[in-house]
């Protein structure tokens, strides 16, 4: 299907984009278009005005400042996957970005668009959540930042207010931690049927702190406090992993989603399996 007719405006600055967005109730930002355009073709989204921000250079950069890495909202998945800084500060984000969709999707899709769209089958939200990232937002009344924990509200719903735009995503340096993202890919789209990210601080063979996030199986990216507490203090042996897997499954119970190919109970079981695989991948074992 073709989308319905729409107006198009190429924004000359962030400020202009925000202004247009605030003035037009039915306006939408256009970044890489890889979520928005398909949604428009299916008539799931029918904006009256598209505000194209895809060329705004200031939102494309990735840089390190002190103990943080800052990723522009318009950084593409391909750019993130290839960034030496991301590979060092947040290795699981680089590897997750490298397995988003296919090469075309990675060349066009942006992290800002991905987080804003909050598709439950997306990869970056799960990883940003596990790294305890911060989302920087700008609107007519100025700038604010939201923790990833509070950013993902529901299915396709975030803490973004009307008229707001994501400018940057900021993550702390996790280069001393062991982290990994693994997913069960949908065979047609490569979207996550289940995706799990584990970020583990280690002292020798003991895990001193663990953060675990799950996506794909759930209506939004969620943390698993149960798994985190089981893993923390353990030596990540089989019995700890089995207990953590059980905890993940019960933590995500209330958020589960499913479809004809991958029903809820299957995804729930796979969250446990993929948690174990994420830990093994993080440890390189």
């Amino acid at each position, binding site marked *: 299907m073709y989308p319905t007719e729409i107006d198009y405006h190429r924004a000359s600055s962030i400020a202009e984009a925000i202004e247009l967005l605030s003035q037009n109730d039915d306006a939408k930002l256009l970044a890489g278009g890889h979520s928005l355009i398909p949604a428009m073709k299916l008539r799931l989204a029918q904006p009256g005005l598209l505000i194209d921000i895809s060329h705004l250079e200031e939102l494309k950069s990735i840089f390190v400042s002190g103990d943080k890495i800052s990723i522009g909202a318009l950084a593409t998945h391909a750019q993130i996957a290839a960034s030496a800084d991301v590979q060092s500060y947040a290795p699981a984000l680089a590897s997750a970005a490298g397995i988003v969709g296919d090469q075309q999707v990675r060349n066009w899709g942006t992290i800002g668009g991905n987080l804003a769209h909050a598709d439950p089958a997306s990869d970056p939200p799960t990883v940003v959540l596990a790294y305890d990232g911060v989302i920087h937002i700008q609107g007519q009344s100025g700038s604010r930042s939201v923790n990833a924990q509070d950013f993902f509200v529901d299915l396709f719903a975030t803490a973004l207010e009307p008229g707001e735009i994501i400018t940057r995503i900021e993550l702390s340096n996790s280069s001393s931690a062991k982290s990994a993202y693994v997913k069960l890919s949908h065979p047609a789209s490569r979207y996550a049927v289940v995706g799990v990210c584990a970020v583990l601080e280690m002292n020798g063979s003991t895990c001193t702190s663990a953060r675990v996030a799950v996506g794909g199986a759930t209506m939004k990216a969620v943390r698993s406090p149960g798994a985190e507490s089981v893993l923390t203090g353990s030596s990540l042996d089989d019995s700890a992993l089995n207990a953590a897997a059980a905890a993940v499954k019960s933590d995500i119970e209330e958020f589960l989603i499913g479809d*004809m*190919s991958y*029903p809820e109970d299957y995804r729930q079981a796979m969250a446990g*399996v993929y948690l174990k695989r994420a830990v093994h991948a993080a440890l390189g074992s």
Partner: protein
Amino acid sequence: MAKDPSFAVGQSIRRIDALGKVTGEAPYPGDINMDGQLWMKIRFSDRPHARVLAIDTQAAEAISGVRGIFTAKDVPVNEYGLVTKDQPVLCGPGSTIPGADVVRCYADMVAVVVADTEAIAAKAVKLIAVTYDDLPPVFDPEEAMQDGAPQIQINLPKNILCHYRIRMGDMAAGWAQSEVIVEGEYDTGYQEHAYLQPEAGLGYIDEQGRVTVIVAGQWVHEDQEQIYHALNLPPEEVRVIYPAIGGAFGGREDMSIQIVLALAAWKLRQPIKTIWSREESIQYHHKRHPIKIYARWGATRDGKIVAIESTVIGDAGPYNYTSTKVLANANLMVSGPYEVPNIHIDTYAVLTNNIPTGAFRGFGAPQGLFAAEGQMNKLAEALNIDPLELRMRNTIREGSILSVSTPLPAGVSMPEVFEACGRESYWHQTEDGRWQRNSLKQPNNPALRRGVGIAGGFKNIGFSFGFPEQNWATIELHGKMEIEQVIVRQAGAEVGQGAHTVFVQMAAEAIGVPVEKVRLIGHDTAETHTSGSASASRLTFMAGNAIRGAAAQALENWKNEERPAKATYQYRPPKTTMYDPETGKAEPNFAYGYVAQAVEVEVDTETGHIRVLRVVSTNDVGRAVNPELVQGQIEGAVVQAQGYALMENLVSVNGKIRNPFLSTYLIPTILDIPPEVKSVILEYPDPIGPWGARGMAEMPFLPLAPAIAAAVHDATGVWIDAIPLTPDRVVAALRAKGIGVF
């Protein structure tokens, strides 16, 4: 006969249609346009079962650009169907055929709209207001067979379209002899043909005033017959032409757009075009039959099968299509390629309000063999006999009596095919001649288990069960002293399998000229006699015999100085017969092709994903007219069968297909197919095949699903008797046995 061997039968010459297809020059139905053409859209049923009380077209007609709207009252003889004319062309009031006002599934058509553009037609078709009076629907064939179930067709109480019986030998004696008995309940799912080219076509009045339809199908003369019957026209006033055809697999055997395009062109006297979307294609053409099979097999300790009892229930949807034939074939195949003295089978095709089911590569054999070979593999386990060894002790051979109490036609190569399959894959023979599996290396990761499975099968070539089978070819030899050009008229459909190339090769061989001198005039009813359909693995065999016959006569005429020398020949194979209604005694077929496959899989016991690592497909093709095309058919069939076995899960809820997209109905892609498919081509000539050729295109589809199921069992110790083996189904089955659990 003088011939250049490099141009003859047995050579992998380049396909004659290759260049056109790879350059995009070859026109497919959707590519063909005419000046002044209008566009057609179809309004399908909104209900699974309802009487159509009224169709209000006023609002649709009021749209500017709408040129015509046709409903039941406009169809002169409002019925069609390949085997039984039991489906209205358009459902609704106003036609003389009783019951034509009832929709029986969502794939029924209610109206067609013709307009200046596709967009206008699409808009108008939605504005047609249809008033329905709902009738009780039934979706489960086993419920539909019960007393008191909603009745779908006027003359079929309990919705039983056909019931075949096999009564062979003495069951009581068979069970008494049985030292080991295995039982199973097998479920096979729908399958969508998923050909590259969705339904498309153009209807118009040709320069001789004929109602003409350009479309993709499998049998031009059958399409023509269905059209002239519905329009009540003399045959010569209807013409059907096939351009390039983008795949078929049985899915184009029944009518889709043919009759309605002809109807609209006939009424409006203008060219009319239509193209279905993928979504329409998946929702509205028939599917492979889901079949439920209950099976009980008994054997002696030394591995001789002595009793088979089975009940086979196929979901036909609300109309026959080819269900009576598909289930007849399943009835024959459900005892497998084995000689067994005592057999008792009941097979039913049952009407429901689900999507119609019909022809699909294998035609009932894949379902029958899924059960038969599943039983065989279970017996091997129960008897502790190697599965190939057990097959060798029971396989059909030359002179074997089938379940239908008659011997197989000569040329049975099943034992040789099984042996070759074993040798070329994972088996060796011990010193005392027994077949034994080689040991298999397992991956280090304990979650990944590998296994090997084997299965075999056979299938008829050509139409079965008494259907009048024939094929016509005409050959003209042009030139003066030497034959300069050979013109072959042969209507057999080039559906992508390479039939046209093979026709040309066989004509070149028969006449003794290089293929460059042969020109083929194909599927156009105005230019050719009937060839029968591109189905039942029959075209090489049937057209080959017709071409041979025509060539011999044409050469004779050439010798007698006729210029051009011309001959038309009708080939008729030996007659076949239908099942005896009480005993099933029959001579169902005149020729068979034989196949066996071994497969190695890796099961991820935690996620339920099955990777097919290697397939060895052993096929007796009699004579490979073009070995590369044979290999193409084997590899294509393996991939399609892998989809059937592992991924293709068409979801129908209350008669409505819920995943009519290739993003949700998953078929194998390059990332899913096995790294290695070894095609082992055997050539044991069929005594009546042209140059010994047997048909082969369906056979490599048949055994893969049961071979995979056996390999999964070998890997995990768990039998899964329902396909597709989707990850969630596999995980559930493994967990039920305590595997892969944490």
